[in-house]
């Protein structure tokens, strides 16, 4: 091992200038660097695979636990409010609630996936193993974000299935449903990536989850129609991407929405592009990643 390092260091720095044949077998069959096309599919694919396996390995924690928690929410809120609030905008309360809770679960888990992965690899120092290989910043963002989306969609799908035993789950417009599921997961996965890069320890991530992600998810119309809100807050809701992802997903499921779902389409796309750009710039410049 040490011989390999010594020889490769000498060769790379060109101290001796010459490489003897006996040195060559240390490098395997080829001395030419490996060439990649425009996209390093191998590297990106493996990073994605590593990120997905990371949460699937502990699926009890990462999939089953959020599903149970979401079902609990459905039970307690239906029991607490079902009598007083029978319908919202013409649909039964539990059917109004279910899509919102699913979006919330998807969003929180997509966020947890990227943020925890980033913070853990930073603390343990294994982030070097991701920064060293020939993967560009764009490919890194893509792999992390897609793994976050995968976790979000997995949780969403299982929750949907579990809820269908208790609440009639309908699909009104599959296109909107799918778009908002992916856009919501992607937005939070990117937010998690940005948060994970920024955070120095777990407390910071816990603080973002407690004081940003959870309040936004709760107060963006999961549990009520935003037409309930008094004036300044009603207008503010329309500047809140969390509101559009919940509202749009609910439109896909029930056909009812507080805002025009087309607006949500644009707001979420814009938010995702902006966050993607931010994450890309952070990784490209090595903000809090490289010394």
């Amino acid at each position: 091992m040490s011989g390999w390092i010594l020889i490769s260091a000498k060769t790379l720095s060109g101290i001796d200038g010459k490489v003897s044949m006996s040195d060559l077998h240390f490098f395997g069959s080829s001395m030419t660097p490996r060439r990649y096309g425009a996209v390093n599919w191998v590297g990106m694919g493996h990073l994605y695979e590593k990120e997905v396996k990371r949460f699937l390995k502990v699926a009890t924690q990462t999939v089953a636990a959020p599903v149970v928690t979401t079902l609990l929410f459905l039970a307690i809120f239906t029991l607490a409010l079902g009598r007083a609030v029978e319908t919202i905008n013409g649909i039964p309360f539990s059917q109004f609630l279910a899509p919102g809770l699913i979006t919330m679960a998807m969003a929180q888990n997509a966020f947890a996936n990227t943020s925890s992965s980033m913070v853990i690899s930073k603390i343990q120092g294994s982030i070097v193993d991701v920064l060293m290989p020939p993967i560009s910043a764009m490919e890194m963002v893509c792999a992390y974000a897609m793994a976050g989306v995968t976790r979000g969609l997995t949780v969403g799908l299982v929750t949907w299935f579990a809820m269908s035993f208790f609440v009639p789950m309908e699909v009104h417009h599959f296109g909107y449903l799918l778009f908002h599921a992916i856009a919501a997961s992607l937005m939070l996965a990117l937010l998690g990536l940005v948060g994970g890069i920024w955070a120095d320890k777990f407390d910071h991530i816990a603080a973002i989850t407690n004081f940003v992600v959870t309040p936004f998810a709760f107060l963006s119309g999961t549990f009520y129609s935003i037409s309930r809100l008094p004036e300044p807050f009603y207008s503010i809701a329309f500047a809140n991407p969390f509101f559009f992802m919940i509202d749009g997903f609910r439109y896909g499921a029930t056909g009812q929405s507080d805002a025009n779902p087309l607006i949500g389409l644009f707001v979420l796309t814009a938010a995702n592009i902006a966050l993607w750009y931010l994450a890309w710039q952070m990784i490209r410049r090595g903000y809090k990643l490289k010394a």
Partner: protein
Amino acid sequence: MSEPVFPLDFSKPRHFTGLNILAIKALSWRLIKGEIAVFKLVLLGPALQSLLFTVVIWLALGDQIPTIGGVPFLAFLTPGLVITAILQRAFETTAFMIVHEKLEGTIADIFGAPMRTGEILTGYVLGALGVSLIVGLPVWIILSPFGGGFPANPVLSIVFLVLGIILLSLLGMLAGQRSRKWDSLSAKEVFILAPALFLSGSFFSVDQLAEPFHTMMLLNPAFHLVNGFRYGMTGYADAPIWISFTVLTISLVVLLIATWRFLDRGYRIKA
């Protein structure tokens, strides 16, 4: 050579008479200090979470706030949220501490100290009591504008609160001792504790439940904790108070014996 290095004389073994109060104090302070030093900002997490629940329900209800047994729904709800947050933290305090110390290996420092099993138990429970009250106070203060406010029967509220904290901290010790890893502890928390706490009638009146569920609810000790605490706070109870008190006393005795035996044998602690 004559100068002693330590101010204490270690040439003779130290003798403790009666209870080792020094050690109990040290152990419970350790829990409280650990919580405050490690978490800080996150100490306000439960308060924020409960506030979110309340605001969301308040907004969802709009102007059609129903009453349950003459108590407005939000005043009915807030005692349930307060005690749920406190009980959850009581469980987490002891369970997290034990798993953490097992994984770090520092649990030997506690079992190696001249403490009897009962003293270790007391130390943990008192520590959890302190932590839960520190966490619970902001929850109560934040939620008091929504209803409730000052308890109708303070003595009863405190009795049920303390009973609940002791029960949950004992449960936390059992769970912590059984868990070899963080994963298994959080599985217990998510799949057993959270359903028991959240489906305990903290958010709704059990009267509205259909029959098999209504009886199941009365078998859940967490329901009796919420019920008793709510009676103390608002004067309204879903079930007679003396039944709740009896159920809780029996649970307490059973749990005390179980925890004491587990701890005494060093189950999954001593090799």
